[in-house]
C-alpha cells in the first residue's frame, strides 16, 4: 500500500508534529489521499491537530462523508472556522451532497450560538495505532470466468486486488448477482480463481498446510445438518480435525456457551428458531478458532428484529475480544447493516464484478443508525450504487475492449409503476434511503426498480436521490390503457434487447422467432443464470408493453400486432 508511505515513518515514531508539517506542505489532493489511507482513529487525531487553513484545504478535497466526520472531530468553533475558510466552490459542493439530516445539522451548527454544547475529547495517546504491516489475506488480480456452452467464457469477476486486514470488520456490499459470494469463496479457498492468486500470510493458498486456510464461514441458510443435534453440529469440524470425543465435546460446549445456547446442546436444529440456528452456525464457526470469520449474508434469512439482536451480539463478541477470529469478512446487500458493523466497506459493481469503492467508517461503536454521520455513509453508498458510472476508488477501467451489453434490471412493471406513483405523491423526488425505509425494502429489492425506472427514463437517480421525470409523471398519472402504450414507447426507445427483438421479429415474414436465438445472443455477454434472468425480464417487459407475445410450448416470440390485429381492432371499436 504505497499511499501510506509519506506518513508511515514519522507516524511509526509517534511524531505527530512532523506529520502535520508534512501534510501542510503537500498538495491538497495528495494530502487528502494520504490521510484517507490511515486507520480511522489516526485520521481523526491528525485532523484535530491540523491548522485551520490546512484543514480547510484538505476538507475540500475529501469525499463529503469523510469531510463531515472529520470536521465533527473538532470543537464547534474550529469547525465553523474551517468551513468558513473552505474554497467556496468546494464548500457549496460539500453542502450540496449532504443528505437532509446531515445538511440540517450542519446548517444548525453553523448558525448556532457559540456555546460549548458539543464536546470533543482531545487527549492524544503517546503513540498512534500501529499501521497494519502484512494483511491476513491478499488477493492479487483474482478473476473469475465461467465457460460458455458454445466455447469462450464469460467474465463474472474482473481482475481484482483486495486485502483483508487483521483487527477489522470488512464488509463487502453490492447488488445481487454482483459476485460478492464468489469473491468470498475465492478468498476462503472454496473456489479457485480463474487467474490471479490468493495469498494467506503472504503465501499462496495451495501451499498452506493442513488442507487449507484456517477460516470458517457462516452461511445465509445456516447450513446445519438437520439430522445431528446442536452439539454434534458444532463438533463436525472438530471431528474433521481428528479431535477425540472428550476434547471436542468440551470445545463445542464452550462455543455454544459463548452464543448462549448451552442449554440447547441436545436439541435438533429444526426445533430452533432462525436466529438460534444462526447462532449454532456461529458457534460452529467459532469452535475451530478461525483466523478469519467469513459471513455470507448471515442475517438475510432472519426477520428484522432477530437480525438486529444477532448483530448486536456479534458486535459484543467482537468488541469484547471474546471471539478468536482476528478479522471478520462480511458479505451483505443491506447497506445499514454494513455501516452498522463494518470498519471498512468495499462496494462492488457488477457485470463483471469489480471494486468500486473502498473506505473506512469512522464512527465509534455502538453506532446510532439515526445519527447524521451514520446517514452520511448510508446516503453515500446509495449514491454509489445508483450511479454505475460514479467510481470512487478507481477510474473507470474497461478491462476488455468490448463494450458491456446493456443489462436490464430485474424489475416488474407493476413495481416500477408503484415506485413512480409513490414518488409522484411525495412531490416528485426523495432520498433513496428514505424510500427504502418507508417501503421496508432492502437494497436488493429496491435498487432494480429504481434502475429500471431510470433505464426507461421515467426517473433520474442522482446522488442518492431519485426524481420522477416528465415521462415518469405522465406514466404515474396515466390510466391502465395508456400505461401500456407509454411503457411500450419508453421500452422501445431505451432497451437494447427489446429493440433487437422487435426489429428481428419485424424483419421475418411470419413475424415470429425462436426465443433461443436471443438466448444465444445474450450468452455472449452474460453467465447462464444472469442470461435467464435477462430473458425473463425481457419477456415480462415485452409482453407487458404489447411488443410481442410468447408461446411457451413452441418457445417462440411473435410480434404482437401480427398476432392480435383482429382483437386489437375489436377493442378499438368497442
Amino acid at each position, binding site marked *: 500500500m504505497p499511499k501510506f508511505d509519506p506518513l508511515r515513518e514519522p507516524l511509526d515514531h509517534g511524531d505527530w508534529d512532523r506529520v502535520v508539517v508534512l501534510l501542510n506542505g503537500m498538495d491538497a489532493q495528495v494530502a487528502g489521499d494520504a490521510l484517507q489511507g490511515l486507520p480511522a482513529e489516526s485520521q481523526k487525531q491528525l485532523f484535530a491537530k491540523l491548522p485551520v487553513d490546512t484543514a480547510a484545504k484538505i476538507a475540500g478535497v475529501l469525499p463529503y462523508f469523510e469531510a463531515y466526520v472529520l470536521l465533527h472531530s473538532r470543537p464547534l468553533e474550529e469547525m465553523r472556522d474551517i468551513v468558513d475558510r473552505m474554497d467556496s466552490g468546494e464548500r457549496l459542493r460539500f453542502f450540496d451532497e449532504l443528505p437532509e439530516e446531515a445538511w440540517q445539522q450542519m446548517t444548525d451548527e453553523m448558525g448556532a450560538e457559540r456555546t460549548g454544547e458539543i464536546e470533543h475529547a482531545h487527549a492524544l495517546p503517546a503513540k498512534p495505532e500501529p499501521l497494519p504491516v502484512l494483511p491476513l489475506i491478499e488477493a492479487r488480480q483474482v478473476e473469475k470466468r465461467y465457460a460458455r456452452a458454445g466455447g469462450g467464457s464469460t467474465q463474472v469477476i474482473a481482475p481484482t486486488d483486495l486485502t483483508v486486514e487483521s483487527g477489522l470488520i470488512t464488509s463487502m456490499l453490492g447488488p445481487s448477482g454482483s459476485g460478492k459470494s464468489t469473491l468470498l*469463496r475465492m478468498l476462503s479457498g472454496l473456489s479457485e480463481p480463474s487467474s490471479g492468486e490468493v495469498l494467506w500470510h503472504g503465501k499462496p493458498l495451495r501451499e498452506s498446510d493442513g488442507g487449507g486456510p484456517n477460516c470458517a464461514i457462516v452461511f445465509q441458510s445456516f*447450513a446445519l445438518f*438437520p439430522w445431528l*443435534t446442536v452439539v454434534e453440529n458444532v463438533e463436525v469440524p472438530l*471431528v*474433521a480435525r*481428528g479431535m477425540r470425543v472428550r476434547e471436542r465435546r468440551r470445545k463445542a460446549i464452550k462455543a455454544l456457551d459463548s452464543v448462549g445456547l448451552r442449554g440447547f446442546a*441436545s436439541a435438533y436444529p429444526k426445533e430452533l428458531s*432462525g436466529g438460534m440456528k444462526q447462532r449454532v452456525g456461529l458457534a460452529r464457526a467459532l469452535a*475451530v478458532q478461525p483466523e478469519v470469520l467469513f459471513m455470507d449474508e448471515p442475517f438475510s434469512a432472519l426477520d428484522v428484529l432477530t437480525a438486529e439482536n444477532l448483530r448486536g451480539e456479534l458486535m459484543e463478541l467482537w468488541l469484547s475480544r471474546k471471539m478468536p477470529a482476528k478479522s471478520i469478512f462480511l458479505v451483505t446487500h443491506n447497506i445499514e447493516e454494513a455501516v452498522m458493523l463494518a470498519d471498512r466497506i468495499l462496494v462492488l459493481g457488477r457485470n463483471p464484478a469489480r471494486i468500486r469503492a473502498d473506505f473506512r467508517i469512522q464512527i465509534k461503536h455502538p453506532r446510532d443508525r439515526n445519527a447524521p454521520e451514520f446517514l452520511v455513509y448510508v446516503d453515500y453508498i446509495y449514491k454509489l450504487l445508483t450511479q454505475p458510472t460514479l467510481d470512487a476508488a478507481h477510474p473507470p477501467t474497461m478491462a476488455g475492449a468490448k463494450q458491456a451489453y446493456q443489462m436490464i434490471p430485474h424489475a416488474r412493471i407493476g413495481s416500477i409503476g408503484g415506485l413512480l406513483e409513490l414518488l409522484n405523491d411525495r412531490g416528485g423526488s426523495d432520498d433513496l434511503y428514505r424510500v427504502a425505509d418507508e417501503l421496508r425494502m432492502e437494497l436488493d429489492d429496491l435498487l432494480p426498480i429504481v434502475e429500471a425506472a431510470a433505464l426507461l427514463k421515467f426517473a433520474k437517480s442522482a446522488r442518492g436521490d431519485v426524481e420522477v421525470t416528465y415521462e415518469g409523471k405522465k406514466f404515474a398519472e396515466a390510466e391502465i390503457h395508456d400505461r401500456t402504450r407509454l411503457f411500450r414507447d419508453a421500452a422501445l426507445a431505451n432497451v437494447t434487447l427489446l429493440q433487437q427483438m422487435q426489429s428481428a421479429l419485424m424483419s421475418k415474414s411470419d413475424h415470429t422467432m425462436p426465443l433461443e436465438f436471443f438466448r444465444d445472443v445474450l450468452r455472449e455477454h452474460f453467465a447462464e443464470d444472469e442470461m435467464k434472468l435477462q430473458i425473463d425480464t425481457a419477456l415480462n417487459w415485452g409482453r407487458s408493453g404489447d411488443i410481442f407475445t410468447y408461446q411457451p410450448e413452441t418457445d417462440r416470440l411473435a410480434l404482437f400486432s401480427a398476432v392480435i390485429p383482429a382483437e386489437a381492432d375489436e377493442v378499438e371499436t368497442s
Partner: protein
Amino acid sequence: MSDSASSTRHSFPPWAAVSSTVPSLLRDLPILAAGLGIFWGLISLSRYWGSNAGSQPDIELRLAVLPKYALFSVARIAIAYAVSLMVTIVYAYVAAHNAKAERIMIPLLDTLQSIPVLSFLPPVMIAMVGLFPSRQLGVELGSIVLIFTGQVWNMTFSVYSSLKNIPRELLEAAEVYRLSWWQKLIQLELPYSAIGLVWNSMMSVAGAWFFLMACEMFTLGNRDLRLPGLGSYLETAANAGNMRAVAWGLAAMVSVIVLMDQLIWRPAIAWSEKFKFEQVEASQTPRSPVLDVLRQSRLLSFAAAVTVAPVREAVTLRLARLHTEARPRHASAWGSRTALACGTAAAAVIVFAVARMIVELSTISLYGVREILTGAAATFLRVEFVLVLAACWTVPVGVYIGLRPRLAALAQPLAQIAASVPATALFPIILVALIRVGGGLGVGSIVLLMLGTQWYILFNVIAGASAIPTDLKEVCNIYGLRGRDRWRKLLLPGIFPFLITGLVTASGGAWNASIVAEYTRIHNQTYSTVGLGAVISRCADSGDFAVLLGATVVMATMVVTVNRLLWRRLYALAQTRYKLET
C-alpha cells in the same frame, strides 16, 4: 450416539409411557425373542442350502411347510436387497463424484431402469442352470440375480439424485471445515439420501415379490425349475385344484407382506424422518411402536455403544487425520490411470459381447424374424389395449373416490392390501379358473395383464383427484361447469400428471407380466398365445437361442423406445403445463 441422544429427549406416545414403567429387562424381551427368531431362520436356511442343493425338491402342500416356504421367499428377497443396497451406494457415489464416469453411468442406468427384467427370466435361468454344477443352486442364484436386477435401479437413481441435490451451502460447509470423504459420506451424503432410499427400497421390495413369484414357479416346457417358496406353493396348489391350500398360501403371503411392513418399513420410515431436510418441525410425523421399542432398548444401545460407536469413532478419526495430511494430487493421477484401465477393459468386453451377439443374431431364419415381429406387434397392442382398458374403469372410479375424502380414506388401505399381493402370485389361480371356463390364453393374458397394471393407475388417479385444490372446484361450481366441460377443464387436466405417472408404472409392469402371461404350462399341457413373451418363453424351452436373444433384444429396445418417445414426453408435459402449483 445420535440415537441415544434422541431417545432421551423424544416425547413418547401412550404405549411408551406404559412400557417405561416395566423393568428394562422385560422391555428387552421382544428384542431377545426377535434375535432368537432370526437365529432359527438362519439355521434352517443353512440346512436347506447345505442339504437340498443337488436334488429336485418336491413342493409339498401341507400347511406346516408354509412358514418354511415363507422364510425361503423372504431370504431370497433379503439377499437380493442386500446386494442391491451395496451396488446402489457404490454406483451412485461413483456416478455423483466422477464427472467422466457419470456421463456413461447415468444414461446406462436410465436404460437399464426401463428394460423389462422378466424378459431375461428364461435366458438367465438357462444360463445359471448351465453354469452351476448343482442345478438347484443355479436356479437359486438366478432368482436372486433377477430380483436384484428388478430392484436395484430405482434405488440407485434415488441415491444418485439425492447426492446431486445436496444444497450447495451444506457441501461448502463440508469443504470449508475439511471433512474427510468418509465423514462427508456418513454425516452428510448418506443421511441426505436416506429418505429417498427408504421409500425406494420399499417400492423395490414390493416389486421384488412380483419377480420372485415368477421365478419360484418357473418351468420351462417339461423342465421343472421351481424353487421351494410361496410362489411354487401357490402354483402347485392351484394346479392340484386344492382351494384350501390356495387360500392358506395367499393368507401367508399377505401376512408376510403386512409383517414386513410393520416390522421393517414402518420403523424405517419413522426413523428416516430425522433425516428430513426441513427448517421447521413437521406437525405430523410417522410413528412406529416397533421403532420406539428399539430406541428404548438398553440392550441395543449398550450393544451399539460397545461395538458400532468405537469402530466408527476410530475409523472417522483415522481418516480425518489422513485427510488433513494427505496430498491428494498423486492419488488422483494414480486413480485416473486405474479408471482408464478399467474403462478400457469394460469397453473391450462390451465390444466383444456385442460382436458375439451380432454373430448369433445373424443365424436367425426368416421365419424366426417374422415370428419375432408378429409377436412384438401383438404384445405391443396387447399392452397398450390393457392400459386403455384399465384407464377406462380406473379414471372414473378413481376420480369418484378421490373427490370424496371420506371414501378415499376408507378405500385407500383396502386397495393397498389388494395391490400388495403380487399379480404373478395370482396368475396360476386365475389361469386354472380361466381354463376351466374354457377361455384360452388370448383372453386370459389380457386378464392377467390387467391384474398387474390397474392398481397403479387407480392409486395415482385417487391421489390426483384428491389433490385438486378446493378453490378450483369452487370456481367450477360457481360458473356452473358440469358434465363434459367439468371433465375437460378441471378433472382431466388436474389428474393428468398423476395419470401419466400411473400409466408409466403400469406400462412397465405390463411388459414384464407379458412374459409369464403369454405362455404357461398347467397339468403338463402348454398354453400360449401370439406374443413376444410367448416367443421368449418358447425359445428358452426349445433351446432356440438365436431367436431367444433376438426376441429379448427386440423387447428391451421396444420398451426403451416407447419410454423415450411417448412416456417421457408426456411426463415432461405433465410436469410443466399441468402441474398445479400452490
